[in-house]
């Protein structure tokens, strides 16, 4: 166990409160991950990272800051990492996934705000997350009303830049997003003091694409009937991918994919034949939110795909690498990011197309559409998602939950009944 107390103290963290978080994390990690049998050996990397989640990576970021690099904290898959990388900056995800931080958020936000937003604000204001302390600048976006208002509060405490995400996907919206990316690039240049050149941006685009390809490789392995990895393990990999260095992330994901592909060739599965295959869709599952996956996978089913921001939306679609001018590259970035099907868009039929496609690709038996409480956008889309899936003959269960443990029995009952129904 490394001693990170000095680092946390230097970051101005509330050590007493943080110690309470340190008490609950090992229990949850043990219960969710270490109770599994026959996990891929390559998961040892993510086991290490989650064991030292507030230690190793924060220490790395601080070392890079000492060399003059800036750290940008982000909350959404619409924020283009490539722009930050091209200016020599570092990106770290900041979405809060723990109930531990929710009361701190509720001190300044309405209770009827989604737990992800409350936890994110609580993590910053409560000074109990090193990533929220380390980030030199937060980059927000306009993907929901709750976030927009929360960013105003966070902006009083930390430098904040907001990207205005379009609400529709017409050609003029793609051009508008391109302009937003260009404006963001100017801000990043000013903040880092580094010029973004076409060469640097091309290199950054390539790095981000390689990371996407590696994540896709792991997901491709889950399409096999011989399931070589649990949904819980993939979820952990995805959650950590938002924090990790992108080159190392790609390397470790490719290492994992090598093992998974070998497992498929050898017929090694983590579940018994006939286990029902579930696609989970809905709002993101920020670390350490493992409740839904753990309940599903201890109820006789396996999660084989996540159609969400902490899932396929993060890595599907590559950025065209052929651009040679910043203008062409910003357009290529816009075209790729605007393919992400977030519920903040209207209409958002692309998400339904994705779901129907993925249900086939991943050979799913049923879909669980789960949104966080008070997320009006995803809650509303359940209607059209459910209708489309039913029309396609795919069973669907719609759920709503938060970060508390209060509804676990209810979730177990509903998910257990759904899995039983899939068995017919």
């Amino acid at each position, binding site marked *: *166990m490394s001693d990170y107390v000095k680092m946390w103290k230097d970051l101005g963290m509330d050590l007493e409160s943080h110690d309470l978080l340190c008490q609950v994390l090992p229990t949850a990690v043990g219960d969710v991950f270490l109770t599994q049998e026959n996990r891929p050996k390559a998961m040892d990397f993510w*086991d*290490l990272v989650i*064991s030292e989640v507030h230690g190793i990576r924060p220490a790395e970021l601080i070392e890079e800051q000492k060399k003059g690099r800036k750290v940008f904290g982000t909350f959404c898959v619409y924020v283009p990492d490539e722009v930050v990388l091209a200016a020599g900056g570092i990106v770290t995800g900041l979405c809060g996934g723990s109930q531990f931080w929710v009361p701190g958020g509720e001190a300044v936000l309405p209770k009827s705000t989604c737990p992800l937003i409350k936890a994110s604000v609580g993590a910053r204001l409560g000074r109990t997350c090193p990533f929220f302390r380390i980030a030199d600048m937060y980059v927000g976006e306009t993907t929901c009303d709750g976030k927009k208002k929360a960013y105003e509060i966070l902006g009083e405490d930390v430098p904040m830049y907001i990207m205005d995400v379009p609400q529709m996907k017409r050609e003029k919206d793609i051009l508008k997003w391109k302009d937003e990316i260009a404006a963001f690039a100017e801000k990043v240049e000013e903040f880092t003091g580094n010029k973004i050149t076409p060469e640097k941006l091309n290199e950054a685009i390539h790095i981000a694409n390689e990371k996407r390809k590696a994540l896709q490789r792991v997901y491709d392995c889950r399409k096999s009937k011989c399931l070589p990895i649990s949904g819980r393990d993939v979820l952990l990999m995805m959650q950590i991918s938002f924090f990790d260095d992108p080159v190392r992330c790609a390397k470790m994901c490719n290492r994992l994919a090598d093992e998974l592909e070998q497992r498929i060739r050898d017929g090694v599965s983590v579940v018994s034949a006939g286990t029902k295959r579930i696609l989970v869709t809905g709002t993101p599952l920020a670390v350490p939110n493992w409740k839904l996956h753990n309940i599903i996978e201890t109820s006789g089913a396996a999660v084989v795909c996540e159609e969400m921001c902490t899932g396929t939306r993060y890595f599907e679609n590559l950025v065209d690498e052929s651009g040679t001018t910043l203008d062409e590259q910003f357009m290529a970035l816009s075209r790729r990011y605007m393919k992400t099907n977030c519920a903040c868009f209207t209409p958002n039929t692309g998400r339904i197309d994705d779901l129907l496609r993925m249900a086939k690709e991943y050979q799913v038996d049923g879909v669980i559409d789960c949104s966080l409480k008070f997320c009006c956008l995803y809650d509303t889309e359940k209607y059209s998602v459910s209708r489309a899936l039913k029309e396609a003959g795919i069973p669907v269960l719609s759920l709503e939950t938060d970060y508390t443990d209060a509804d676990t029995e209810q979730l177990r009952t509903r998910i257990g009944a759904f899995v039983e129904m899939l068995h017919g």
Partner: protein
Amino acid sequence: MADRRVRYYVLFVNYEQGMALHELLTAHGIENRIAPAPRAIQGKLSCGMSVLLEPEWLERAKACIGEHHAEYYDIVPLADQLRAHRDRYC
């Protein structure tokens, strides 16, 4: 169903020591897993990784540690740590 089994947590001063032992044990075919050290046994050290051993691997692990002079802080037995249906998240 609660798993009351006693398991052994090898603690370290830093994660480099922990990873070195994890790799050493793995290279010698001794089953071990990386786990966050339960708060109850962290003592004066702050939270971080440990190496988790099932009881049937303890003696072989100790012999391997001794033979290779591998560094560690302590080995602590602890029961009832892993429960898939506990439903206590963070």
